[in-house]
């Protein structure tokens, strides 16, 4: 596959016409944050996370106002090192890396031997299963610091015990030198380590993702575990018994984590660090928001209306902001389980980015099954079920009275718009993120991206370009990627992030004018594609 990349100057992307209005129809690259298409018109809905670097660079437990649970547990230098994880240099020192590489090669060698034995004894089903296990694209493991396995994406207990031993050996080998292992690069494999005491998270993958992106995914898994247990409980357990077997407490939750990892493979929300909105006429969105807004209760912090990982509206308590990671975890919790489909669920859930020390209680109920429409009411008071349940009743009543259902149902029936609506020659797909609102939009993946394989390939390409644009050593604002199957223009500014996929027949000039037209289209449609206001109770 012949590919070439060229960094083109941002100048060619600016538009001829000069617009004076604050919300210009087509944003120039110098556009300041908060005026880009999709930017919130009042306050933002989410905790402000400008970019991917903010997320990977952040320190854990740095929630203002919440007690620093993590810090109190272990103040060793290791803790410090793991907190500064992303600030450390990308590569280990060369001598260290050689050691690591050789260790991994031994492991790969072992796999080769297993593979050949597997061929000799074809009837040996167990070995074939093991081989299939080794062939997965991305493994994710969670271990305790004592080396006990806690989670493995593809399960397989027998392979796990020896592997977790090797992994812990690698981690502690470097720790004795007051150093931290971040990653191992061997052949096409990347082994990425994330240390969040008392847990160690490891990914072994052969994808095109950058180390940073994989580390970010591992952090999501860490937050997923926190959302089930709270940071306080997690630390308490391991403080009491370092050899604690966490699998007992997490039993039944593997599916949620599995689903999160699967979702990260196909949903660009995680890559962009943004929330996808359901496109809906703004009148209908405002109407449903106001229904949520009016059903308030003392203990309610957030009211969220969603459908299949897409946000419809979110109402929050005035002084509180939801973090998009917390919202992603909530979305995944709802979609990964059919247990919420009947009745009204009342479940403890920790929103780790909001406050990792305690549980909220989430009232989860489906307002409609076909099309799917789910209501989440997040309360601070676990005794408040009936009050919150009453809020739900009031929301449903009001939605009926105001006649919200018709337009909602229509929007839910077509959750993705076709790229043909944009009417730009050679345009196939795009991702557009408004940085100030933390929301993004993208059209349906139509032909030729209508197969699972092609979808994954396109997303992998986006991931690759994302990592190029956000590479810690040299940021790129524009990348023009030419491949045999498609050309992709990437444009990252202070205000937005844009990935536009054209057919391979598109030229650079078609792409440049296409992008300008696309931005104008997004501006024109912004009140349908984005949530422009951030209502509070």
């Amino acid at each position: 596959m012949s590919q070439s990349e060229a960094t083109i100057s941002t100048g060619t992307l600016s538009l001829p016409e000069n617009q004076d209005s604050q919300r210009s129809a087509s944003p120039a690259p110098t556009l300041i944050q908060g005026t880009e298409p999709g930017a919130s018109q009042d306050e933002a809905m989410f905790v402000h996370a400008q970019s991917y670097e903010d997320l990977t660079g952040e320190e854990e437990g740095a929630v203002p106002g919440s007690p620093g649970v993590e810090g109190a547990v272990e103040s060793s230098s290791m803790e410090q090192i793991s907190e500064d994880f992303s600030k450390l240099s990308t590569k280990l020192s060369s001598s260290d890396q050689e050691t690591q590489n050789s260790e991994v090669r031994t492991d790969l060698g072992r796999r080769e031997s297993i593979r050949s034995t597997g061929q000799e004894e074809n009837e040996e089903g167990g070995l074939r299963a093991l081989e299939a296990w080794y062939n997965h694209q991305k493994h994710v493991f969670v271990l305790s610091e004592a080396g006990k396995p806690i989670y493995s994406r593809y399960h397989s207990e027998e392979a796990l015990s020896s592997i977790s031993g090797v992994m812990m050996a690698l981690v502690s080998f470097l720790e004795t030198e007051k150093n931290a292992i971040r990653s191992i690069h061997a052949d096409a494999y990347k082994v990425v380590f994330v240390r969040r005491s008392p847990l160690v998270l490891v990914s072994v993958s052969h994808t095109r993702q950058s180390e940073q992106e994989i580390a970010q995914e591992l952090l999501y898994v860490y937050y997923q575990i926190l959302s089930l247990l709270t940071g306080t409980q997690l630390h308490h357990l391991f403080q009491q018994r370092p050899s604690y077997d966490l699998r007992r407490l997490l039993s039944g939750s593997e599916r949620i984590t599995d689903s999160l990892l699967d979702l990260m493979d196909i949903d660009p929300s995680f890559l962009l660090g943004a929330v996808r909105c359901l496109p809906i006429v703004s009148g209908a969105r405002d109407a449903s928001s106001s229904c949520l807004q009016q059903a308030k209760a003392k203990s309610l912090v957030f009211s969220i209306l969603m459908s299949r990982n897409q946000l419809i509206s979110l109402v929050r308590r005035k002084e509180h902001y939801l973090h998009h990671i917390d919202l992603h975890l909530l979305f995944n919790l709802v979609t990964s389980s059919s247990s919420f489909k009947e009745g009204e669920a009342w479940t403890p859930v920790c929103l780790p980015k909001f406050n990792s020390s305690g549980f909220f209680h989430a009232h989860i109920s489906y307002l409609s099954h076909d099309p799917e429409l789910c209501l989440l009411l997040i309360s601070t008071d676990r005794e408040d079920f009936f009050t919150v349940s009453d809020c739900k009743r009031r929301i449903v009543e009001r939605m009926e009275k105001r006649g919200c259902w018709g337009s909602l149902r229509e929007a839910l029936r077509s959750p993705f718009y076709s790229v043909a609506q944009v009417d730009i020659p050679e345009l196939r797909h795009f991702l557009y993120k408004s940085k100030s609102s933390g929301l993004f939009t993208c059209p349906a993946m139509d032909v030729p991206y209508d197969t699972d394989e092609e979808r994954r390939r396109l997303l992998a390409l986006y991931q690759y370009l994302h990592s190029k644009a956000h590479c810690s050593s040299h940021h790129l604002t524009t990348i023009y990627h030419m491949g045999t199957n498609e050309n992709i223009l990437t444009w990252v500014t202070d205000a937005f992030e844009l990935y536009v996929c054209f057919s391979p027949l598109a030229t650079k000039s078609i792409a440049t004018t296409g992008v300008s037209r696309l931005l104008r289209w997004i501006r024109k449609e912004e009140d349908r594609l984005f949530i422009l206001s951030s209502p509070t109770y």
Partner: protein
Amino acid sequence: MSGQRVDVKVVMLGKESVGKTSLVERYVHHRFLQGPYQNTIGAAFVAKTMYVEGRSLTLGIWDTAGSERYEAMSRIYYRGAKAAIVCYDLTDASSFERVKFWVNELQNFEEHCRIYICGTKSDLLENDKSLRQVDFHDVQDYAEEIKAHVCETSSKTGQSVDELFQKVAEDYVNFNSMQGPTEAKGVDLNQKQNSTLYSCCHH
């Protein structure tokens, strides 16, 4: 100002995967869903109105998660319950051990709660009696000791399911008149100064 009027709070307890959700599903929706096991997350609430001696009565059923993760906060689900259906899997001896744990818990914290011990998945025994791991008479002896009602159900066939909930409702009607005042409201852990008191369950 509760959204639903609930007369009897009923809580489902028991080890994970014994079939608490299936039991509720069978009773409320008259169906049995085949397919992969889905564990309950937290707890689910469902209200069902039924008739006992010509009078309508609403059961508020709390279907709790069996996972140990939620054990510490299970009290919020069974607090003030008038009836607890403690389930075990007839083909799993360890699940009966968990019954004893829950009964203990209820006896300590909810003395007014009537206990119903329910052996599930009885359809599995129809073809193969040897699958039974919990002896009926052992359960009966235990139940007599703690003054509990015993039954064996199958959510798949529906055997004894409606009867169980009917019994819960009848017992409530029959014994309620003799019962003393309801328990005091639990301590509000968040120490919110609510001007209005919301009670979990009232009659």
